[in-house]
């Protein structure tokens, strides 16, 4: 049985923020008499993550996903609660702990802008105490996996966003971390670059057994990589479990559209235990529960000679969108 690598118990995090009313009056009032409020962004959250898991954090903007990631990697002090990441207390930022983790943020970069990425890699290697010969080997291995080569010798500012993100990944993985915190890693990338990155992360997870915690607004990232998701809404965990179960829970039905050979068949179909949505000539559209789907379809295919069949599932973005809005 795999052991827990991350344990979070009753974590709360509050920030003191100041609000400003619009207009010149508001600006002056804000300057002389700043009113601050304490905002709880993470509220009593609990979860455990086992070694080698890939877990996706889902939630709307401002839900608290990034704050949780930052608490887990030791950047922010929690206001309350207990955390253990790789057996350490993250916010103490002990060297042994920092060598085990990495943080990759899609919207921020650590590579030095004016010089080639290879120089940043060697700098990172020296920071992590990696010998140059070993660093060369790791750079070669990772660049093969990421399919970047000549780009390593061009100034970072000359690289495309996709190439830059690959280089960022290489810089962040040179010390072979066992826990990866990824905050929207595919942000702004084109479809192919997104797919490549996902593929790489999946292979990296399989090859190294690294634990990956991921936030992303691209549902494909989540569905491709994560079996388990944690949904956050206004600082609370609203769901923690298998993605498949969540999707079944949020969208229990599938729409089936059948074009029958005759209207007579449509009439017989209507008598079956199905929830009809629409009938148009010899085309019938009905909703069927995912659990009954297999049997219902089998029955139809056995009884009727159909012309065409379409199965429609609501787009996953639409389904997940529901939990971001409705706090289900």
């Amino acid at each position, binding site marked *: 049985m795999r052991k827990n690598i991350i344990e979070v118990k009753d974590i709360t995090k509050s920030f003191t923020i100041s609000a400003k009313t619009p207009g010149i009056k508001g600006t002056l009032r804000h300057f002389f008499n700043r009113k601050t409020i304490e905002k709880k962004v993470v509220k009593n959250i609990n979860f455990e993550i086992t070694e080698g898991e890939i877990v996706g954090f889902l939630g709307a903007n401002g839900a608290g996903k990034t704050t949780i990631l930052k608490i887990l*990697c030791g950047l922010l002090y929690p206001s309350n609660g207990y955390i253990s990441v790789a057996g350490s207390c993250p916010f103490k930022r002990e060297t042994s702990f920092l060598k085990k983790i990495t943080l990759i943020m899609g919207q921020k970069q650590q590579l030095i802008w004016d010089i080639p990425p290879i120089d940043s890699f060697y700098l990172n290697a020296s920071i992590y105490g990696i010998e140059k010969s070993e660093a060369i080997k790791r750079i070669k291995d990772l660049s093969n996996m990421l399919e970047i080569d000549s780009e390593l010798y061009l100034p970072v500012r000359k690289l495309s966003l996709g190439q830059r993100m690959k280089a960022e990944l290489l810089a962040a993985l040179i010390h072979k971390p066992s826990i990866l915190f990824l905050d929207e890693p595919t942000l702004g990338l084109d479809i192919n670059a997104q797919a490549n990155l996902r593929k790489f992360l999946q292979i990296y997870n399989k090859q190294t057994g690294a634990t990956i915690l991921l936030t992303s607004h691209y549902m494909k990232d989540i569905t491709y990589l994560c079996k388990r998701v944690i949904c956050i809404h206004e600082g609370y965990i609203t769901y923690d479990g298998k993605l498949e179960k969540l999707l079944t829970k949020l969208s229990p039905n599938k729409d089936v559209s059948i074009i029958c050979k005759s209207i007579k068949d449509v009439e017989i179909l209507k008598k079956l235990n199905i929830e009809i949505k629409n009938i148009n000539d010899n085309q019938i559209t009905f909703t069927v529960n995912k659990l009954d789907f297999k049997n219902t379809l089998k029955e139809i295919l056995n009884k009727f000679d159909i012309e065409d069949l379409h199965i429609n599932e609501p787009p996953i973005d639409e389904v997940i969108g529901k939990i971001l809005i409705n706090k289900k």
Partner: protein
Amino acid sequence: MNIKKYLQVYSYFNYSSFSIELEYKVNLFIDLLTAILGLIGSVFLLSIFFSNTDEIGGWNFNQALIIQGIYTILNGVTNTWFNPNLKEIVKYVREGTLDYVLLKPIDSQFWVSFNRISPTGLIEILLGFFVLNYCFYINNISFTIWSLILLMITLICSISILYSLWFLISTTTIWFVKTWNATEVLRSFLYMGRFPMDSFSFSLRIFFSTFIPITFITTIPSEVLLGLSPAWKIILEVLVSMTFLIFSRKFWKFALRFYTSASS
């Protein structure tokens, strides 16, 4: 602390800084020209002050030139290390890239203080030592190893005080986010260091030697060179610099507890 690792990291810092500077050749040339013209301007300004008098606060022009030399060295140090690094702290905090620094297994103060180097500032340091060398000649200073050691001690202390002051101000960025202007004020105070401490009124002397010990940092090394500095002044400078260094480090560690990172 693993000294070997830190030296290696520092050599990479320097290498990447030089690489960046060499990417922009014209800028390098302009910086070099600015350093030379800056020194000429400062000496010219000093000569204007002395055009109608032989002494200011007990210092003649040749002696005051020593202070100018020390000031040029310190300004060079400022331009080489402090300006490119400590100014960036504001950027790190505003943009949230301090996250990457804090997650590296390396001392964060070391990173933010020595990450960059501006090679053109080194020219200024060389020019400063050139002025000091000239001052040895015009002031008939008998040069001994002992005076050189004392000069280096007081110079290191002066650099430490200046660094600590600058770093303290930059650290407040963690709470106030934008404090870049405050470091500019400190820089303009540094200009005061081009004149002997004794040339100021009593109240200003107190201000510039206690609250913001700018004159302290240029005058004492100059007095050491002229053999005018009593031992207590040197000891005091060592103590002041150590106090400032320790305080600035503790303050940084304390401030990091309040770092909230930038939102994504």
